[in-house]
């Protein structure tokens, strides 16, 4: 199915009956909340379990088939537990279970058990139950509190907690309170430490409820009602555990022999399952041998559903008909398993295990069994989180297959479906479902794409066209049911298609190195891999901050409320852009990692910030503090070294190391790891600044972020001044240098000379000279020359990019219409081609002529329709839109024409703007491109001229031409206009068709078919013209249709694809129609 395009979050429906009612009402961005899951709640009762077992026995044949895909068997020393277990962990969660009696003889009752899932280097799956780690947080200890007071406090708190957790069967809610010496990370403090209370609670969720009590205030003997500032009370339990045990996401963990115990009753499907104490874990930093990846199993899958005509598939009605699966071992090129499960028989597919079933129930259960046997560590796919997985689960619920949703690694534990409400300023509030599969990482490529890349379309088709240069056949969902209802051959066709959809995500994963990059990101930032996709940026910084703070004996306040009150601050500076077309080399001076450098250079941190009161009180010597341009005071590193600068230094040093290692590395896999690492380090370093400025974040500190930007502004200004003062004719240079533009971290200088090499030398000289005036590690670097350079305005420019004096590297553009979705392709092509002509060919008249030709083509109705198609997503039905929109109106009209093929909510609607009655509203002028093609409906060239082309084109040409608008948009080339006559308009039904002369269009007498009397004698030339047209179309027809055959991967079957994202879809259709017409025209000659 066309993911991203058509798939949408299914409408919320009732969760499966036996689900634990632990749903989270609100999951605001970056709100971290723990959620206790009670082990026995998720497990299926005994009688149900036996029912499942019986079911499995019945399907022994299938089981044999699946058995060949199981993991390699355990060696004897593993079985005897005589060797240590070393594994790479990928996923981690916790459950509430009975405290382990042998390992923790002193405690009893419910406790949090951390489960670590991973893979050994032999490929065995591991489930490690970690006991004894307890949730806790800090509060600052009120002055004068003595041990006695602490125990009183403990009792009061326990009592209040008991009120809040009435139903809890836990013996002691607040386990203990310890007095510790710590220091808050906030503000520069002269004393080393203060007393803090570490409050240890029984269960992770109690941290939040305890925090609530302390936030609101608690009645204390002798002290009265008192509120407490809590510290580190917003740290997720698993993250807390990882930090305290020095575990980072995706690293290797070892348990020596004898330090672990095989579980008495195995609860998971993992090959190795054992219990241990958290203190026995050996966690390795990912270096050397431990930077490798275990051969974990990656499952890529896709489902097909047979929708009803005119409806998007809904799990309450439409069956799942096929599931294609591909399992690949990490690091291998070829998949280990390729199979497809189909409803009804399906012809065999070479190299693929085709499993056909008669009922949907069997298909679903076969897939469940397959998941269990193949036991994937990572599940990937395209839009699986929002579509495929919830669909499967809801479908199973509709069919009442209660035993289906056991997809996780915990025996008989159903997957949990969580309603999540995601709200953000950009998208509004969206409800969706999150499917939790215990022990398996979900990695939805659609989410990754949306997160990491800015693309004009995120359909699987256009994403694979973009990254793999492969077009994907797209079968419209209305055809899917027809194929399913056909014969084994047509179902095979569908299966091949389904397999391709399962294969492409894997290809993308390999091509874009996602596994390496994300695992490295997890290692660098220390969060579990699953956090990277499901959570925002700030948790990554928070994790690093917490780790560092722990080393320094610092604690982080839970300063949420403080954040929202703070206002905004002035952003980065942009120097006035002197728009124009520069035909001399422009040197670009860049600050390398500007914001991190500033934070390091000026020691900006939470713990070096001096409050205005403190500044007066502490009387710090002026040489020990920095006053930032924004007026804040920070102490220098000799008084107190900042944590953020330290984190940044480490990140940048690590990046340098990774880059050096990358150069040395020979093994491609090792290279991939290192490259992923240096990238992760770079991203992490840059996100620290954002963390301090995120007002809704975890620990915002606008004093830091505004100081950073103010320094940044100052540096840009400073650079501009130095360049313009030094590089002058007075100082012996050939020309006066001029700064024509400056952005956040770069300055563009025109030195006035025309040789690239000299400009490079001057650039280097300037960079070195100016860097000398900055505090380390702030460094100005000369990186590239733009030559020629077209500066349009702030953040909009284009130029040829030179790093070597002899040849340019590429054409670089910024902020220019090339990727915007709501532009038609014509705009993009026009802009790119013009820039190409202006910058590379240096042919401005050529570019002008090119634009004029294009405009003339448009007006003369010679433009290829596919270039004019505009596409918009239909997110809700017409009534829900407040303003009438072109694509929504069109969808309504199409539904009236043919409900079966009309776009549904979730589809993307392509349309063109057609000529309509005078005064018609823009939204009434939209039309389906295919309908336009078939009925010769005239498009509205003026709409395209005025609303699409003119702005982007004028932007480019205005710095170059004096009268750009007049020349380009109103010249003589706009005089002649040709509009085709629609073949479906009312009046045409009454018109009688009469042949006209091919030469002069004069009406022909009855019985004459080709030429009028006047044109006789010009047969040869006129025939040549007709035949040339046919010939051109034939060539196009052949090339287009054979391309489609190639995409679909079959010569002997008709092309079915209806991918409107494909650049040749409309051309193909048009070629077919034009061909038929041209042939008829040519045939008139044979009379």
């Amino acid at each position: 199915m066309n993911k991203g395009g058509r798939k949408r979050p299914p409408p919320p429906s009732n969760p499966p009956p036996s689900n634990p009612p632990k749903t989270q009402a609100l999951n605001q961005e970056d709100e971290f909340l723990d959620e206790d899951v009670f082990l026995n709640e998720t497990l299926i009762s005994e009688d149900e379990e036996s029912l499942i077992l019986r079911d499995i026995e019945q399907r022994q044949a299938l089981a044999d088939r699946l058995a060949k895909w199981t993991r390699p068997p355990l060696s004897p020393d593993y079985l005897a537990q005589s060797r240590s277990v070393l594994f790479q962990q990928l996923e981690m969660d916790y459950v509430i279970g009975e405290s382990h009696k042998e390992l923790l003889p002193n405690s009893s009752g419910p406790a949090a058990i951390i489960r670590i899932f991973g893979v050994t280097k032999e490929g065995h799956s591991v489930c490690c139950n970690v006991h004894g780690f307890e949730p806790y947080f800090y509060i600052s200890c009120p002055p004068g509190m003595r041990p006695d007071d602490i125990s009183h406090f403990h009792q009061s708190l326990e009592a209040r907690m008991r009120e809040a957790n009435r139903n809890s069967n836990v013996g002691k809610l607040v386990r203990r309170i310890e007095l510790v010496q710590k220091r808050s990370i906030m503000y520069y403090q002269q004393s080393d430490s203060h007393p803090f209370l570490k409050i240890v609670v029984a269960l992770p969720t109690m941290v939040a409820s305890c925090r609530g009590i302390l936030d609101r205030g608690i009645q204390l003997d002798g002290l009265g009602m008192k509120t407490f500032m809590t510290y580190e009370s917003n740290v997720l339990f698993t993250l807390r555990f990882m930090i305290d045990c020095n575990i980072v996401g995706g690293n290797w963990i070892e348990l020596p022999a004898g330090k672990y115990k095989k579980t008495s009753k195995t609860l998971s499907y993992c090959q190795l399952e054992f219990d241990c104490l958290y203190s026995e874990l050996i966690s390795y930093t990912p270096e050397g041998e431990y930077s490798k990846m275990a051969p974990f199993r990656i499952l890529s899958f896709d489902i097909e559903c047979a929708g009803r005509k005119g409806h998007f598939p809904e799990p309450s009605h439409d069956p799942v008909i096929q599931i294609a699966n591909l399992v690949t071992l990490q690091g291998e090129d070829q998949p280990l398993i390729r199979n497809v499960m189909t409803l009804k028989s399906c012809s065999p597919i070479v190299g693929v295990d085709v499993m056909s079933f008669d009922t949907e129930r069997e298909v679903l259960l076969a897939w469940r069994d397959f998941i269990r046997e193949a036991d994937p560590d990572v599940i990937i796919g395209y839009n699986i989180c929002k579509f495929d997985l919830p669909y499967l689960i809801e479908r199973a619920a509709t069919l009442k297959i209660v035993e289906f949703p056991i997809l996780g690694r915990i025996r008989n534990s159903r997957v949990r479906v969580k309603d999540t409400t995601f709200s953000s300023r950009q998208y509004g509030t969206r409800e969706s479902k999150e499917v939790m599969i215990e022990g398996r990482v979900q990695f939805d490529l659609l989410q990754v794409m949306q997160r990491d890349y800015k693309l004009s379309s995120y359909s699987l088709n256009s994403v694979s066209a973009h990254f793999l240069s492969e077009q994907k056949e797209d079968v419209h969902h209305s055809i899917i049911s027809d194929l399913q209802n056909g014969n084994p051959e047509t179902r095979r066709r569908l299966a091949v298609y389904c397999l391709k959809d399962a294969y492409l995500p894997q290809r993308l994963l390999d091509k874009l190195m996602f596994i390496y990059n994300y695992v490295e990101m997890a290692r660098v930032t220390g969060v579990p891999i699953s956090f990277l996709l499901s959570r925002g940026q700030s948790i990554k910084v928070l994790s690093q901050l917490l780790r560092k703070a722990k080393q320094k004996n610092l604690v982080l306040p839970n300063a949420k409320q403080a954040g929202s009150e703070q206002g905004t601050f002035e952003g980065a500076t942009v120097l006035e852009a002197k728009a124009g077309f520069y035909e001399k080399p422009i040197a670009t001076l860049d600050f390398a990692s500007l914001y991190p450098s500033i934070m390091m250079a000026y020691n900006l941190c939470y713990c070096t910030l001096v409050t205005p009161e403190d500044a007066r009180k502490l009387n710090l010597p002026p040489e020990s503090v920095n006053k930032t341009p924004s007026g804040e005071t920070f102490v220098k590193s000799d008084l107190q070294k900042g944590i953020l600068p330290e984190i940044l230094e480490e990140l940048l040093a690590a990046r340098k190391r990774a880059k050096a290692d990358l150069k040395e590395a020979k093994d491609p896999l090792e290279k991939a790891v290192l490259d992923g690492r240096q990238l992760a380090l770079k991203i992490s370093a840059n996100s620290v600044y954002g963390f301090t400025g995120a007002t809704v974040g975890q620990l915002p500190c606008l004093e830091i972020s505004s100081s950073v930007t103010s320094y940044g502004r100052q540096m840009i200004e400073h650079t501009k001044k130095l360049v313009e003062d030094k590089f002058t004719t007075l100082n012996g240079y050939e020309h006066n240098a001029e700064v024509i533009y400056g952005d956040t971290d770069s300055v563009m200088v025109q030195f006035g000379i025309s040789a690239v090499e000299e400009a490079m030398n001057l650039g280097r000289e300037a960079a070195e000279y100016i860097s000398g005036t900055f505090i380390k590690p702030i460094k100005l670097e000369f990186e590239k020359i733009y030559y020629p350079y077209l500066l349009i305005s702030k953040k909009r420019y284009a130029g040829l990019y030179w790093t070597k004096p002899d040849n340019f590297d590429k054409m670089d553009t910024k902020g220019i219409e090339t990727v915007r979705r709501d532009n038609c392709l014509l705009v993009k092509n026009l802009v790119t081609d013009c820039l190409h002509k202006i910058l590379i060919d240096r042919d401005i008249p050529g570019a002008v002529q090119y634009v004029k030709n294009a405009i003339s083509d448009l007006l003369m109705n010679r433009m290829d329709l596919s270039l004019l198609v505009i596409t918009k997503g239909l997110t809700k039905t017409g009534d829900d839109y407040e303003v009438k929109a072109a694509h929504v109106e069109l969808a309504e009209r199409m539904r009236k024409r043919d409900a079966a093929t009309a776009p549904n909510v979730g589809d993307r609607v392509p349309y063109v703007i057609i000529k309509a009655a005078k005064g018609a509203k823009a939204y009434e002028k939209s039309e389906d491109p295919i309908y336009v093609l078939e009925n010769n409906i005239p498009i509205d060239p003026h709409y395209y001229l005025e609303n699409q082309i003119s702005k982007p084109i004028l932007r480019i040409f205005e710095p170059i031409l004096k009268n750009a608008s007049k020349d380009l948009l109103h010249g003589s080339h706009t005089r002649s206009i040709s509009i085709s006559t629609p073949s479906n308009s009312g009046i045409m039904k009454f018109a009688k068709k009469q042949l006209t002369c091919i030469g002069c269009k004069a009406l022909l007498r009855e019985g004459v078919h080709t030429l009028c009397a006047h044109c006789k004698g010009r047969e040869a030339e006129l025939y040549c013209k007709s035949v040339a047209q046919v010939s051109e179309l034939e060539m196009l027809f052949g090339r287009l249709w054979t391309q489609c055959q190639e995409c679909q991967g079959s010569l002997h079957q008709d092309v079915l694809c209806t991918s409107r994202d494909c650049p040749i879809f409309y051309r193909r259709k048009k070629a077919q129609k034009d061909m038929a017409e041209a042939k008829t025209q040519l045939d008139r000659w044979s009379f």
Partner: protein
Amino acid sequence: MEKEKNLHRLQCSYTCLDESFEIGKETYKGQQYSHIYFARLNLMRTLLHSLVSNWKPFSPVRPVLELEEGKECVIIGTLYKHMKLKPRVLDEYSKERSVVPLVKPHNFTHSDDYLVLEDEKGRVKLGGNFISPSVYATGVVVALHGKESGAGDFLVLDVLEAGLPPQIDRPLKSSEDKYVVLVSGLSIGSSNSNPLQFQLLIDHITGHLGDEMEQGIASQIVHVVIAGNSIEIPAGLINGQNLASKDLSRIAEPIKELDIMLNQIAAGLPLDIMPGPNDPSNFALPQQPLHRCLFPGSSAYNTFRSCSNPHCFELDNVRFLGTSGQNVDDLDKYSEAKDKLEFMERTLRWRHLAPTAPNTLGCYPFTDKDPFFIDSCPNVYFIGNQNKYETRIIKGSEGQLVRLICVPKFNETGVAVVLNLKDLECHALSFGTQLSS
């Protein structure tokens, strides 16, 4: 041909066999290319099936989908060559306009190319060293002997091509020498065309040149075949845009000139003219005969025949099959051989005139037939518009004899080819109008 000695031009019987190449009233009704592959596979499979019993009597013939790992069998299907360098129309539309202009290489083969065999139901990737991807091209139908390897590939152990088609025995003819002249690439209207050269050729054919002996030979020329690219319309004149009337008449100029020249030949002896890629005909194969309205002068003669490309005919029971060169030129882009004649030989052995149509060679989407299937072996097989004159005789396993001829571009080489119908001997006729030093 009244001369002093009253030489009489010899005659021969002529049968046109172009029927299968006529498109006639067929139209584009939305049909796709799958049908032509389907028709081709059906024709070829019947043929190959009958050969398999002798070739691998103990191996079962299986559909691609019923392969079983490790079991030897024979599969029959259409080859598809996956080519890394093959230009794709998609790239022209979708790729970012690249800074460096695309260099169009002459040949698109690459060492990473691989073959796939496809029947109506499925396809399988071919492995092993037995079958070389550089030799084959998409669209060829073969039988393969081998077995499925573990990875889902088919390990090829032997290849069976259909081989030369059966040849109708040629009744022994008189010992009379009768000559056929083959010429191509006149390119009238091109910047380097030399009217004098062509006039010399005409004068030679029609017997207006040389002494008696030479005229005597000329009188034995019984037929002329012009194999494509007779005119060249200046590039850029026809580009779909509206033309000024003076430009329009410029298009017709070379055609008028050609008509005048052909007039002279047709007045003397039978002439077949085939369209080529540059001629005012349709692009896709089979190219339809050039319209008679282009030749108001010559078409008045019944000796003037405008034919299709490919063109098949018989002269005194000698069967000719020829094209204007597109079929072999396309193979030359997508596969490799030591010379053009080898490509020609392969098309005969594959029993298919243009296997790369429709994949890389434009072709009409036939629904019920594949006109390029060669069911009967020609005696003479020629292709036009080649860079140089080459010829060879090949022999088939059943005694078939075929004369292969590459007819060079006359405009560039000044060479026409003369073939003797008596013994299929062949020589070049070279016209130079410049004194070479």
